[in-house]
């Protein structure tokens, strides 16, 4: 019996891979998005519930914090770290008597989480990778253009976002956010011993909803294409030069 953990950058098919692994391992409890925001922690560690609980909703780690002053930012970071620690502790307790499948996003993984996973002989970690241009564009569209449909929201009241062809300009903050996220992804990826590395483009998802072929025409929506391509080239090159 093993625990199964999926690690990825973002928009790399981690939901689909996690679901497939869960279906292949019915003895495991699927703790979907455990470290992000969906799971409510009970006092009884053996009954981690699957229901969304607003009070457990975490503050997104970056964007909402951009407009805060330094002290506010530190305070929020502390709260988030505490929440992550509580969740990690509950997972440790839970795993004493249960096996689980989950994905651990780049935004929430830290050394404590990594240490727990890597030192648990019952845990297998998988990496799913996807074309970085696809990830970048999909992440931007998903986060800032198309409403995040994985989060339960009131469909009537949710904000309407406009997505017209050739109307998007990727703003500077997103380059910075992505750089932070990518550096963190690389930092942890290089410390993890993976049971398997999977290419999104080669993997056959059991649920076809998760397979989206590299639609490079998505770039057509972006006004500052050259800037995006240049940024990604320089980012990958800079990280490669520094870390490899």
């Amino acid at each position, binding site marked *: 019996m093993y625990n199964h953990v999926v690690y990825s950058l973002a928009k790399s098919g981690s939901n689909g891979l996690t679901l497939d692994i869960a279906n292949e391992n019915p003895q495991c409890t699927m703790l979907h998005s455990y470290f992000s925001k969906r799971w409510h922690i009970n006092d009884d560690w053996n009954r981690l519930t699957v229901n969304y609980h607003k009070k457990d909703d975490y503050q997104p780690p970056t964007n909402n914090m951009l407009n805060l002053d330094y002290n506010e930012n530190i305070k929020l970071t502390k709260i988030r770290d505490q929440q992550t620690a509580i969740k990690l502790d509950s997972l440790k307790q839970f795993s004493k008597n249960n096996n689980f499948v989950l994905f651990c996003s780049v935004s929430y993984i830290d050394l404590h989480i990594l240490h727990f996973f890597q030192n648990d002989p019952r845990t297998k970690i998988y990496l799913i990778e996807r*074309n*970085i*241009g*696809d990830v970048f564009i999909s992440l931007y569209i998903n986060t800032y253009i198309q409403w995040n449909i994985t989060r339960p929201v009131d469909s009537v009241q949710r904000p309407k976002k406009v997505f017209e062809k050739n109307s998007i300009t990727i703003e500077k903050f997103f380059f910075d956010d992505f750089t932070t996220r990518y550096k963190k992804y690389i930092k942890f990826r290089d410390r993890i011993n993976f049971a398997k*590395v999977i290419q999104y483009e080669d993997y056959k998802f059991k649920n076809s909803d998760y397979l989206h072929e590299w639609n490079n025409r998505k770039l057509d929506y972006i006004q500052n294409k*050259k800037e995006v391509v240049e940024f990604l080239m320089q980012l*990958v*090159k800079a990280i*490669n030069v520094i870390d*490899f």
Partner: protein
Amino acid sequence: MEQIDISFDLTSTDYSAELGFSVTLDEKTIIDILHVDKETPVTLKIEADDGDHELKFTMKNKTANHTTVDENGQVVKDAYLNISNFYLKNIKLGDIFLEHCKYHHDFNGSQDPVVVPFYGDIGCNGTIVFLFRSPAYYWILETIPYRKSNYV
């Protein structure tokens, strides 16, 4: 149809040697230089249909006289060309350019033809074939080496 700006620096280790150089796109000659006699910044504007394309760089007219060998057979002086700072649509490709080039030559007629990786220097008469696809931005995004080699 996409308009693509291409630029690179063409240099020689010996400008007195009459090394020739040409560029073709899909077999159509774009530039033909009889003698690379000075550092030559090359700028091209090409029109490319969607799909695969071959950009070929050919060095010609190198002779045995352009290479000086000592009594031990070691090359002490040689004339060769170099391509550097390759830009596609104003984006410097760096290693992506080299990785998508193949160097076809036959050691100036002294050996069987070979196809080898290209590292920037053109030491033998022959052709470097650079393969790319239009639209160029999409091709670059698909080509960025985002994976660590030991995971491939």
